[in-house]
């Protein structure tokens, strides 16, 4: 059975159609246009949820999606605001935070134990009674009782979308000021986007009365709405929330399952105002609601908010709501006005309507079980009076919709009593108007919108508005001696909790907030911030102006993780030979963004495969895809000079056709990167960099080139070239089988030489360098022809090998990997690489720092060690000395060639000497002794690579 008001009420519902949804298993009838909360209220279902801490019954409070009372679960979707979510046929809606049923909640017992949960309860209690109490005792209890909805572990898949838009002017809020701002900006030629959280334009014009006679509001609504809808320059986004303001007006707009990221040149904040509740005992009972909520229920949904009402009018809107209620057929038992005089001039109208007004009085408490059934009023004389009612409409005054302005860096200031507010200090291109600016008179609101729209086009800055009266009286704020006078409904905080927080020594608002958790719930202080500030001001003998209001940060309202999730696919990089590896049966491995072959595996185990590949390199001819190497082309008259400054070795006198090791340091003398430089021509170097560091090295090169003003052109040609390192004692024979114009003989192409020519018809740059310690030729070819070269090499007898074998081979040869064997502090001296530091050059990056660090002395040194078995060690195992860690293992593996486990580790310099020993900590505890040996482990005379 539903109870709806007659025609003239319910602008949003279509009474000609009806459908059902289910709430806690009960069928609820709804019309199209209803929200879940309005349909429930129409059927007399006023209890929507149970409160967070005390499990108190809660119902409609704002009807604007601004409170936590209406949070419900819809199917597997938690935390749905019932006063925003449109009702739809067949929805399964259930209440949250309920033990048992909504009307018989066994958690309600906590309400009667409330005195055991004082403010700071969590903060103070969980340190005891013993160490470990938190994990063993408290956390399980809290995990069971905390949180509101239930997250489904098997949810219905849902797709979220992102869009990016631009506009000249973004207007947030389509109330009277927002509509007129959009029209004014559009009239000056701006492209305007207008964002409104409600499903229709108009804001307060759609539900509020504005005056005794509503004719003007109705006329303005029709006129502004029609003009905006007809304006081709204005795009309206309804049911959309601007959830924050970021730098340069970067604005996230949430609309359903879409996140629209808008870059607006100018932003007009027309977010209106938040009506404030009043503080009295049991002010949270269902049936106690904001005056605007009662008006929304009637005008939007034709829902009768009650049968007999008491109205608390701390603002003129209280009187206007009383008139609305009476017009809708609700008996208005009493208007309670905290002020002694007829400040709003409604006396005559109240008399005409025979509505009794009690001046200089306050509501002290409400009473009722699941719904309010009477209120206790204290008259100015001190007389106590009771009034039966099933509706308490509270007009507690307003705070501006300040959130977006505060995100933009503005300050919210108020007078001493918190009756008038102003937003000051807005940055350029941000404007505020209407109720958000502190205005309440309709024509002033519309006018301020038009001015803000104009400023948004002309670029004029906002001036600090003069404070406008109209927020004129604050209801009494004295904690009730029996409590249950809620300041923060989300967190179940009573007035005395705030008072006690101050008594516990937290005098500043930001500290009170953190100690008590006030304002931390879903409504983010929209209804608690002002009352809290007033209580703190009262307790500390300061004015509200001195205490201030807590700040506001994005997001304004709740947002789903699905909207935030990055949906761009993960970037993968493939070398030109990727397809060759896959068809050869390679097991691939990600290395940063790249995918590289780990092992070409036949019918063998991984260990057998790696062993086979290592043998192949040591005895035959093998090849590794090294296309991921960073490659840089440097050309110009100052190319050699540039390399001399950027790297530690000497390049100015490097002969054409020679390859030289490169080591780059940062200004601190730590190793940045390494590679090789091949001088192709007097003014042309081809330089390699580490796979993972090339972007950084390239950026650093561009910066240094700019600072030094050198004539050199630097190109990052990493993806332009593929690269294959052919290695093993049989390599020369394999290469000589290919047609080419490069002399590959030992005499004609020595170790560390570079040649440019053709091989198998492919243009190549060849360098005699390698990582394995064997005879090696590193062949770089245009990426488009790398596959042809690879196939020719295979046909000539080279067999591919993978990264795991490569890792062992390079370790046997003692080659370091930047980033694995080095960290942000590693110096060349610690690696025993002083040979790479030119003593003759007057300058290279890091030269001064290397000298200074050398003077300080070394704390560690990298050395090689061997062990007969694995010993439960691995990379990152600690090197111990006297029970203290002094270093760690950087590389570790089994050497087939040496038939021993080998590794490199940082150790104390006195221990990092061949013949000494290291104490290494096993992963599972205990220490093992390892013998320090000279590096490299394999072929120390370098005879094999120089074959």
């Amino acid at each position, binding site marked *: 059975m539903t109870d709806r008001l007659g025609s003239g009420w319910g602008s949003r519902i279509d009474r000609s159609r009806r459908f059902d949804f289910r709430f806690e298993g009960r069928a609820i009838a709804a019309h199209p246009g209803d929200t879940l909360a309005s349909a429930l209220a129409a059927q007399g279902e006023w209890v929507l949820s149970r409160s967070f801490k005390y499990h108190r019954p809660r119902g409609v409070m704002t009807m604007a999606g601004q409170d936590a009372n209406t949070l419900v679960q819809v199917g597997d979707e938690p935390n749905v605001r019932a006063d925003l979510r449109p009702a739809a046929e067949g929805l399964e809606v259930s209440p949250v935070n309920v033990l048992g049923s909504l009307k018989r909640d066994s958690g309600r017992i906590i309400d009667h134990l409330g005195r055991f949960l004082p403010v700071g309860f969590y903060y103070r209690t969980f340190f005891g009674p013993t160490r470990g109490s938190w994990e063993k005792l408290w956390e399980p209890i809290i995990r069971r009782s905390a949180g509101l909805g239930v997250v489904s572990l098997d949810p219905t898949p849902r797709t979220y979308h992102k869009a990016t838009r631009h506009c000249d002017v973004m207007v947030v809020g389509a109330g009277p000021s927002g509509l007129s701002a959009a029209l004014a900006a559009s009239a000056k030629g701006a492209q305007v986007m207008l964002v409104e959280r409600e499903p229709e334009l108009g804001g307060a014009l759609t539900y509020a009365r504005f005056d005794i006679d509503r004719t003007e509001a109705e006329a303005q609504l029709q006129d502004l709405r029609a003009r905006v809808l007809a304006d081709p320059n204005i795009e309206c986004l309804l049911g959309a929330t601007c959830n924050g303001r970021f730098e340069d007006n*970067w604005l996230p707009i949430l609309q359903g399952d879409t996140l629209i990221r808008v870059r607006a040149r100018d932003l007009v904040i027309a977010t209106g105002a938040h009506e404030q509740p009043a503080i009295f005992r049991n002010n949270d009972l269902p049936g106690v609601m904001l005056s605007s909520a009662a008006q929304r229920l009637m005008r939007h949904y034709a829902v009768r908010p009650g049968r007999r009402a008491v109205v608390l009018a701390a603002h003129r809107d209280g009187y206007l709501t009383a008139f609305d209620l009476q017009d809708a057929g609700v008996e208005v038992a009493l208007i309670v006005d905290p002020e002694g005089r007829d400040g709003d001039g409604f006396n005559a109208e109240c008399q005409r309507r025979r509505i009794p007004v009690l001046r200089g009085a306050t509501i002290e408490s409400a009473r009722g079980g699941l719904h309010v059934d009477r209120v206790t009023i204290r008259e100015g004389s001190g007389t106590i009076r009771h009034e039966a009612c099933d509706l308490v409409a509270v007009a507690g005054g307003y705070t501006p919709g300040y959130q977006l302005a505060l995100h933009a860096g503005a300050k919210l200031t108020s007078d001493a009593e918190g009756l008038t507010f102003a937003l000051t200090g807005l940055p350029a291109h941000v404007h505020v108007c209407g109720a958000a600016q502190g205005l309440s008179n309709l024509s002033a609101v519309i006018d301020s919108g038009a001015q803000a729209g104009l400023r948004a086009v002309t670029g004029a800055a906002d001036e600090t508005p003069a404070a406008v009266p109209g927020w004129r009286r604050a209801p009494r704020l004295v904690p009730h001696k029996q409590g249950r006078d809620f300041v923060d409904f989300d967190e179940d905080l009573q007035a005395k909790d705030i008072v006690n927080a101050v008594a516990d020594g937290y005098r500043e608002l930001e500290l009170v907030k953190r100690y008590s958790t006030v304002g931390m719930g879903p409504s983010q202080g929209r209804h608690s911030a002002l009352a809290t500030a007033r209580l703190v001001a009262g307790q500390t003998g300061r004015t509200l102006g001195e205490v201030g209001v807590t700040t506001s940060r994005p997001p304004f309202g709740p947002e789903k993780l699905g909207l935030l999730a990055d949906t761009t696919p993960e970037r993968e990089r493939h070398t030109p030979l990727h397809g060759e590896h896959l068809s050869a049966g390679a097991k691939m491995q990600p290395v940063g963004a790249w995918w590289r072959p780990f092992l070409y595996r036949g019918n063998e185990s991984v260990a057998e495969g790696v062993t086979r590949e290592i043998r192949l390199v040591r005895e035959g001819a093998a090849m590794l895809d090294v296309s991921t190497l960073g490659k840089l082309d440097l050309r110009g008259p100052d190319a050699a000079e540039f390399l001399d400054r950027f790297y530690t070795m000497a390049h100015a006198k490097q002969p054409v056709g020679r390859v030289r090791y490169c080591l780059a340091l940062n200004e601190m003398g730590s190793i940045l990167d390494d590679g090789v430089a091949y001088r192709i021509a007097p003014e042309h170097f081809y330089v390699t960099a580490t796979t993972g560091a090339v972007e950084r090295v390239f950026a650093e090169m561009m*910066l240094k080139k700019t600072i030094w003003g050198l004539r050199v052109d630097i190109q990052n040609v990493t993806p332009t070239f593929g690269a294959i390192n052919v290695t093993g004692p049989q390599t020369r024979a394999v290469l000589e089988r290919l047609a080419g114009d490069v002399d590959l003989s030992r005499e004609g192409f020595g170790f560390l030489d570079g040649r440019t020519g053709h091989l198998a018809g492919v243009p190549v740059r060849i360098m005699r360098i390698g990582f394995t310690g064997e005879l090696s030729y590193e062949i770089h070819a245009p990426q488009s022809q790398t596959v042809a070269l690879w196939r020719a090499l295979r046909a000539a007898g080279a067999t591919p090998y993978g990264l795991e074998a490569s890792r062992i081979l390079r370790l046997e040869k003692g080659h370091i990997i930047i980033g694995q064997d080095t960290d942000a502090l590693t110096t060349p001296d610690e690696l025993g690489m002083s040979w790479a530091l030119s003593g003759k050059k007057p300058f290279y990056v890091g030269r*001064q720092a290397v000298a200074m660090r050398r003077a300080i002395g070394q704390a560690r040194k990298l050395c090689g060690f061997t062990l007969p078995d694995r010993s439960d060690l691995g990379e990152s195992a600690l090197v111990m000395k006297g029970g203290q860690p002094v270093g760690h293992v950087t590389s570790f593996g089994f050497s087939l060639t040496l038939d021993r486990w080998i590794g490199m580790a940082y150790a104390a310099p006195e221990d990092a000497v061949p013949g000494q020993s290291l104490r290494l900590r096993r992963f599972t505890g205990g220490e093992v002794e390892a013998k320090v040996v000279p590096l490299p482990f394999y072929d120390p005379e370098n005879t094999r690579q120089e074959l």
Partner: protein
Amino acid sequence: MKLMTCPMNGPRSIAEFQWLGAVQPDDDPQGGALVERLFFAPNLLGVLREWWRHTPTNTVFIAERHLTTNEILRTYFHNAGTDSTAGAAQ
């Protein structure tokens, strides 16, 4: 997300830029002066000159940014006449 005016490409989203550190004198400090350069960050409440790079086009330039307001006041090339005023130009 912030905007920055590249002297080559005009106003672009800050995500396209790479920060390369404060502009330092082009010298080779030693001893205490080097230690100060490396480890003393003045963190001033005022305008800092910084190196930035527009990564898609590999353009290195200087920006003047106010560290209190995060406002980018000016961007321009090193040792060049091309000058672009950011912020007001957006």
